[in-house]
């Protein structure tokens, strides 16, 4: 073994290994090729499952949305609670005279006009507040009936019984007498529901992202989101993220949770996936409890939402990729353990969302203030 400088330990070892040039055996090659095929199969399977998940959620959301907007609705909502007689006794059927005639009540078309919807382009900042369940005419009727049955102290008049026997609104519509003016055909809600969202974000490392999204109707039960986002940075990295977010408002009450939120991003050197599975508003103060899963790590966190502000913390662990050290990906975002304190202030009337993030990681403390997004404009058509 020849070495240029045998007195240097480094040279001894370096030259020894550089001069060692083994050749593979056929058996080793067969094993390597089998492993390569297996990994290729796993990769394809992973892609297929991801695509299937995205398509399933998207199709399911679209179907439920279509089903919801295509259901017949009443031209007018039910009268407000304050104008109604109060029924109290849960065992109300026992009090109803046997000869009482129960008739469906026609909705009062003058006492409670339908809230006027703006036909102008409306700027609105997306926030969790918007996802608070609102009583739609149908569920509002149901809830109203339930509230009356439970809370009313006493029965005073027989026509209370008439009120309690109000059928669902779509049945009311179908039983409208012929002499009543038929309700005007409502415009397809899909036109009033899709809200294009354009946003731009800066962060402390000069990443800039531009995106456009289509947001579904913030209805009682379902809301979906589909978006496309691109991001560039001065490192000439870029990614395109496609996200579908289906939010199911559980039971139409004070609970909602995100069923699935897959985000598929393409970047120059890596792909990322993120899924938020749990989002619960089970308490009086809505909070976020979920985890963010991506190829590189796991995040958990709790975020409390208030009407105009939210705060919380996110704790996560991100791991390393073989390409991180080459400089293609900023290592600052990888190979670290981090805890993020996130404070967000939502200012809907200014259509802006400011967020302050404080991070500290393994071995170092990093504080940064970011605006995410610095400005956001939502243009939409609502009727």
């Amino acid at each position, binding site marked *: 073994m020849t070495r240029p400088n045998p007195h240097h330990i480094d040279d001894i*070892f*370096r030259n020894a290994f550089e001069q060692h040039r083994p050749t*593979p055996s056929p058996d080793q090659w067969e094993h390597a*090729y089998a*492993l390569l095929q297996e990994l*290729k199969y796993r990769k394809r399977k992973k892609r297929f499952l991801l695509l299937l998940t995205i398509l399933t959620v998207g199709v399911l959301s679209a179907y439920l949305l279509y089903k919801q907007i295509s259901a017949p609705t009443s031209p007018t909502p039910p009268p407000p609670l304050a104008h109604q007689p109060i029924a109290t006794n849960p065992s109300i059927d026992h009090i109803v005279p046997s000869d009482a005639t129960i008739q469906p009540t026609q909705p009062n078309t003058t006492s409670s006009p339908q809230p006027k919807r703006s036909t102008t382009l409306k700027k609105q900042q997306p926030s969790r507040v918007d996802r608070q369940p609102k009583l739609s005419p149908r569920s509002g009727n149901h809830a109203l009936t339930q509230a009356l049955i439970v809370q009313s102290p006493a029965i005073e008049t027989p026509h209370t019984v008439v009120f309690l026997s109000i059928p669902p609104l779509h049945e009311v519509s179908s039983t409208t007498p012929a002499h009543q003016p038929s309700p005007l055909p409502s415009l397809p809600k899909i036109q009033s529901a899709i809200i294009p969202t354009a946003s731009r974000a800066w962060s402390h490392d000069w990443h800039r992202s531009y995106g456009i999204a289509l947001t579904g109707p913030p209805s009682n039960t379902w809301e979906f989101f589909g978006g496309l986002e691109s991001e560039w940075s001065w490192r000439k990295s870029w990614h395109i993220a496609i996200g579908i977010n289906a939010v199911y408002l559980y039971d139409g009450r004070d609970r909602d949770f995100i069923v699935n939120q897959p985000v598929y991003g393409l970047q120059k050197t890596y792909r990322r996936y993120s899924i938020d599975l749990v989002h619960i508003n089970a308490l009086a103060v809505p909070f976020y409890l979920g985890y963010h899963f991506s190829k590189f790590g796991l995040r958990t966190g709790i975020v409390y939402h208030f009407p105009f502000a939210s705060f919380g913390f996110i704790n996560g662990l991100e791991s390393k990729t073989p*390409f991180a050290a080459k400089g293609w990906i900023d290592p600052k975002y990888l190979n670290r353990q981090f805890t993020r304190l996130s404070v967000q202030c939502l200012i809907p009337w200014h259509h802006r969302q400011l967020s302050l993030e404080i991070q500290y990681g393994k071995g170092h403390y990093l504080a940064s203030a970011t605006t995410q997004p610095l400005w956001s404009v939502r243009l939409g058509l609502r009727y």
Partner: protein
Amino acid sequence: MSEELIHIIQQCKKRDDKHAYYQLYRACYADIFNIVIRYMPDHGDQSWMLNKCFAKIALNLHHYDPQQPFHAWMRRVVINEILDYLRKQSRRKRAESAAINNTPHHPPTNNGIDQLQLQDLLRLVRRLPQRTREVFNLYAIDGYKHDEIAKMLHISIGTSKWHLNHARTLLQQWIRQLYPEWNICKKAGQ
């Protein structure tokens, strides 16, 4: 990079050609093998890791920038893959380093430094503690700088320098114990 290697890489990118992959395997084998046997102390895992590193390279060929030297990119991928694996392993069994250090020492079978064979050097390298061995391999053999090593191993630059010096001291002691007549010195400058 040779034209032949460029052609092999293009063939591997274009279609799932077993012959092209075999040519790539032959081109990468020696480098991967040398890295794996230096970093992986366990013989049972070496063959599996070698194949896994090759699969990693083959599956990520589309990330390779042809403007860069292929072998440098390949070594980077292999080293990072091995370090990731060792990091996961060390979390599972913290006592791995101690077990390696407690392995019985087999003295080199040759009688002179010029006749030191690869297995003898490997035996000495494997006697080093895991982190010290990683730093020594990265700096002395793979040519990384201390700041790069510090980022890769999540240690400080000073710690990296300490591990390198410690590795050189240990290797020097072991070689002197085995061959007291030789005058092996640490390389000047880090």
